[in-house]
């Protein structure tokens, strides 16, 4: 029955491949083409060479956006994973050892559920919630009490030096829950006897985490890093809804995706595509680097 294999396989593959080419590769290719034109969205594009790219490289806002994306690229995975690893360690192995079996701290099932809550909320809702929480006047959840105490309010979203940190904090807040679950799943795959052995050797929680859990979790951490890195290159919806003047004050929180969107709305589709191409290469470089740098021998268990 060997001869019937290929038509069978092809018939299954053809449709996804065609759809992928039309809806994924196609638009990419078109964006590359549009980046070299002066397309405005209404009339036929004319070829302008690398003019859009030259303009882009001379645009302060573009560089600001790149900086913010790189900031998120470094900070978002670090902070999110640090918190998520700590929490999932506490939820899974941080508790007292009972008869040699490691388990989470008391109430860990409940916490796991609670930590996941932010993940269920849509980004826009998160943004609107935080807008109210961080409001600079007396109605803000944080600034309200400060107001009553007579302390001058913190401009979470209005102070240009603070605003980007606020965006980072909200991104982390929303992301942590998911990674707690992801790492928990990874940790539950680590055999109990390894912990038991470590326990017998007198390992405390601290060395248990750094010498046992983390190395055995490396694959999951790597996946998380790539996910978070890609998320750092997006951040579009949150910045669009949460921040003052969509990326402000004065461009202090804008990211590449917002610049693409803004220029697209301003009928500069060609220019926006050029930024999209830049974003594409940044993301690609990041993914390539991560996979390459983090390649190492697997520990089988």
């Amino acid at each position, binding site marked *: 029955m060997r001869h019937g294999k290929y038509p069978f396989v092809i018939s299954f593959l053809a449709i996804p491949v065609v759809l992928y080419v039309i809806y994924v590769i196609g638009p990419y290719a078109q964006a590359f083409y*549009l980046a070299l034109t002066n397309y405005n969205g*209404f009339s036929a594009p004319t070829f302008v060479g690398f003019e859009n790219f030259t303009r882009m490289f001379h645009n302060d806002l573009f560089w600001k956006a790149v900086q913010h994306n790189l900031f998120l690229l470094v900070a978002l995975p670090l902070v999110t994973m640090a918190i998520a690893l700590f929490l999932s360690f506490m939820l899974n192995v941080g508790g007292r050892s009972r008869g040699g079996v490691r388990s989470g701290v008391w109430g860990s099932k409940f916490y796991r559920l609670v930590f996941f809550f932010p993940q269920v909320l849509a980004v826009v809702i998160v943004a609107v919630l935080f807008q109210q929480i961080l409001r*600079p006047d007396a109605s803000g959840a944080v600034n309200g009490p400060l107001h009553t105490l007579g302390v001058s*309010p913190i401009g979470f*979203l209005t102070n240009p030096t603070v605003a980007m940190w606020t965006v980072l904090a909200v991104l982390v807040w929303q992301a942590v829950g998911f990674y707690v679950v992801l790492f928990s799943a990874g940790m539950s795959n680590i055999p109990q006897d390894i912990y038991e052995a470590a326990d017998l050797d007198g390992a405390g929680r601290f060395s248990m985490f750094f010498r046992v859990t983390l190395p055995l979790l490396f694959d999951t951490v790597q996946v998380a890093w790539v996910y978070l890195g890609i998320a750092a290159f*997006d951040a579009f919806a949150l910045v669009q809804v949460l921040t003052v003047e969509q990326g402000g004050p004065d461009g202090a929180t804008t990211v590449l995706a917002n610049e693409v969107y803004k220029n697209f*709305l301003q009928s500069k589709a060609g220019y926006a595509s050029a930024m999209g191409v830049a974003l594409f290469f940044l993301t690609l470089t990041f993914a390539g680097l991560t996979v390459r740098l983090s390649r190492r021998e697997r520990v089988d268990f």
Partner: protein
Amino acid sequence: MSLSPENQDTVEASPFGKPGLDRRTMLRRTAAASLVAVPGLGLLDACATGGSSGSTPTSGGGAKDKDNPLGVDKKAPLEVVIFAGGYSDGYAKNVHVPIYKKAFPDADVKETATQEISTTLQPRFNGGTPPDVVDNSGSKQMEFGALVDAGQLQDLADLWAAPSVDDPSKTVKDTLLTGTIDQGMFNGKSYVFNYVSTVYGIWYNAKLWATKGWTAPTTWNDFIALLDKIKAAGITPYGYAGANASYYQYLVLLTSAAKLGGTDILKNIDNLTPDSWKNDSVHKAAEAWASVGAKYTDKSFLGLKHTEVQLKQNQDKVALYPSGNWLENEQKKDTPASFEYAMFPIPSLSTSDKMPVTAVWAGAGEPFFVSAKGKNPKGGMEYFRRMLSKEGAQGFTKETGSLTVLQGSAEGLTLPPGLQSSAKALTAAGKDTFYYLFDGWYKDLDQELRAATNELFYGGGTADKFVDRMQKKADAIKADSSIKKFTR
């Protein structure tokens, strides 16, 4: 021209509004629009981007007669798309469409409303099947410059020359407030019809003022004295919403400059004339308003949206708020009985201002256009002609609480107090009205000015920095060959 009430339901306005479409949806739609047409990569040239050849009007027109001076084909269908923002779309659905249908019973009129003008309509303009009439407003409006450039807009000259509905001895043009047509001109041709009459001023609570004995200031010294009095009364004297409505304040700043140095200042700014921002009057206006920002406001307003600051005013926590005459209607639901809107024109900066204190920024807002490549452009113009009948205009005012650009359209209507106050200011101003158009022509300049105004007013900026920054941006736009230029 593009000055319209900030839509309550867009992302930046409503705490629980509909989110803007995310990047993925946008990319997906762009992709769909392009690849539905030509699913082959070798033909990229002919994709989404090449389809603007457009269809020729299928309705060449019918016979012209007294009731149909533009010669509309009486059976041709008409499609109208309305921006459902601050004015909603009731005025079209309940007033204008029925009027058109009454005149042309055989025509099939389709009216739809959306808040996402550019995302829903841009693919249709690209594909050559645009709707006939578009209310191109809101924060997702399509850029007029690009539309004009692509030849998508119908020249409205025939409409203005046609006899008006109510008095056939007058042309439509004669029935409009002065400046209406000018504000829809692009390099000498009239493409855009701005329907709503907008008057700008500083708004206050007349009832509160009566109890406090405060009066509207006319000179800058009076104004500062008033701000001091308000401050002493424990109320924040002045403020605007920095998060999404800083253009309310930049309008005030430019009004001060125009009153001080004459309206040519605004014209020069529009025309990107060299050193137009470095003009002494602009500098002085920036200085004056920076000092108001330094002393008489609450810096936390930088992080608030227009509805949030407007609510504070309704609660008498802010005394003065700059806005257009849609404000009263926009706040209708939140205005307590103890609050009654009234406005005064922006006070003169000096005793030797080139314009009188009564001068106001008066514009036409809510831009409509007819698609040149639509199926029924004549029908579209006829629809405008009927919007400008007394019946159409008064119907609009009743539905939205806003006045139209039709002269005397408020006659016989009882107006709410705020609208009355702004109508009075407009009458008092007479010929001394002015406007600018750069915000619609050059979005980049608008964005820069919003940020610069926030910096100046709330961020402790200086007038020097402000004019330098704006001049730099204006020069950059002038030098950028990819941006279509306009003059007036």
